[in-house]
């Protein structure tokens, strides 16, 4: 289908983009990669009055090593994220999860920031940002603010980014020595969305799990941490059977839905199985 009519602007800076969003009023929308926006426009599920294209704002692109953390511009494409040496060596979980997103064509255009700001519960990258305690920099008419991943995802397709605001960059702390990571995604078809996904980062010390951080994809309206598994894992030996036992509470605190892909019970089963797999793989069990 052909989208309904809208105006289009392509600002060169974040300030210009915010001015354009403000001038455009409530129905103005940011577009970066367009890989979630274009399907919505074509199905006329979105009918913005103005599209503000942020794909060419230099400040919003690129990947920077800050020593103890990595900052990724929101308009950096999935392709650039997954092929970056900085990301591959210091935020491997993100590189691995990004490689499972969609298909090559979509990864060439879709952006990390777009995937977070869209707030799709089935998106793979929100759970990764949550598991890695990422911080988002948001710019708006009142200036800039930093929002922690745990406060960023508000509800189904709703994030902390207000209608006149822009997600500028994402900063992810490096994990350091002893940490291993793994993203386990369960889907049924090529280029399919996750029915359930599990992002795990695990620190091993002296053959035992010292700390675990686990983010779940598509288990609620927003990504959630499997907190009870995280506590159950602390001090546990790196053994597949012990990890499996600790993973039995993976569905605690989740609100899985039933849809065409799977029913709630099956999703909860997947949470337990995939959490055990992701943790075992991250811990090298």
């Amino acid at each position, binding site marked *: 289908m052909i989208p309904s009519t809208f105006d289009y602007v392509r600002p060169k800076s974040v300030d210009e983009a915010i001015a354009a969003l403000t001038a455009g009023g409530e129905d103005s929308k940011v577009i970066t990669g367009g890989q979630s926006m*274009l399907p919505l426009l074509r199905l006329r599920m979105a009918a913005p009055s103005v599209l503000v294209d942020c794909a060419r704002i230099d400040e919003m692109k690129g990947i920077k090593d800050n020593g103890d953390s990595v900052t990724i511009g929101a308009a950096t494409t999935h392709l650039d994220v997954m092929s970056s040496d900085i990301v591959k060596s210091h935020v491997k979980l993100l590189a691995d999860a990004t490689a499972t997103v969609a298909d090559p*064509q979509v990864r060439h*255009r879709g952006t990390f920031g777009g995937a977070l700001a869209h707030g799709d519960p089935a998106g793979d990258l929100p759970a990764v940002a949550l598991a890695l305690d990422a911080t988002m920099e948001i710019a708006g008419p009142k200036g800039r603010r930093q929002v922690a991943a745990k406060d960023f995802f508000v509800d189904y397709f709703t994030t902390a980014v207000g209608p006149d605001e822009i997600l500028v960059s994402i900063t992810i702390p490096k994990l350091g020595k002893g940490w291993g990571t793994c993203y386990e995604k369960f889907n049924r078809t090529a280029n399919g969305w996750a029915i359930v996904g599990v992002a795990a980062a695990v620190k091993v010390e002296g053959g035992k799990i010292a700390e675990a951080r686990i983010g779940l994809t598509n288990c609620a309206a927003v990504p959630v941490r499997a907190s009870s598994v995280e506590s159950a894992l602390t001090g546990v030996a790196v053994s597949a059977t012990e990890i499996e036992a600790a993973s039995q509470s993976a569905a605690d605190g989740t609100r899985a839905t039933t849809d065409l892909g799977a029913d709630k019970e099956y999703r909860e089963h997947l949470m337990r199985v995939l959490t055990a797999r992701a943790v075992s793989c991250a811990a090298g069990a």
Partner: protein
Amino acid sequence: MTKVSITVDGVLHESEVEPRTLLVHYLREQIGKVGTVVGCDTSSCGACTILLDGRSAKSCSVLAVQADGSSVTTIEGLAGEEWHPVQAAFKECHGLQCGYCTPGMVMSAVDLLGENPNPTEAEIREGLEGNLCRCTGYHNIVKSVALAAQNMKGGK
């Protein structure tokens, strides 16, 4: 209307488009590149795949205004005097039945081989993940891409 300049198959076009014009409609209806086709409304099928600044993209999922200043290669721009090796291999291996997915399959294969000249069968299947075929069951498509890889190494 918005002015765009887009190089399509090596020729620079200065055009006026409505911001809502999809790149695929611009290519087909304004430039006449009807080799690029539309197969779905959900960015899923990949029939519309082109190269945008050298990398594969679904032209139904890009606005023409977003491609302003860019260079596009469509299926019509691949062959010179002779078929492009990927096209020749699809012909040789019977990598198509109805042919509707073929323009997109070929463009995705060109992108894949540009990045990875020596793909395994699994890498070919993954590289074509964004392209659906309702007819062939994919086997001959995978064979075609493997043959193209072989022939391109031979400098053909």
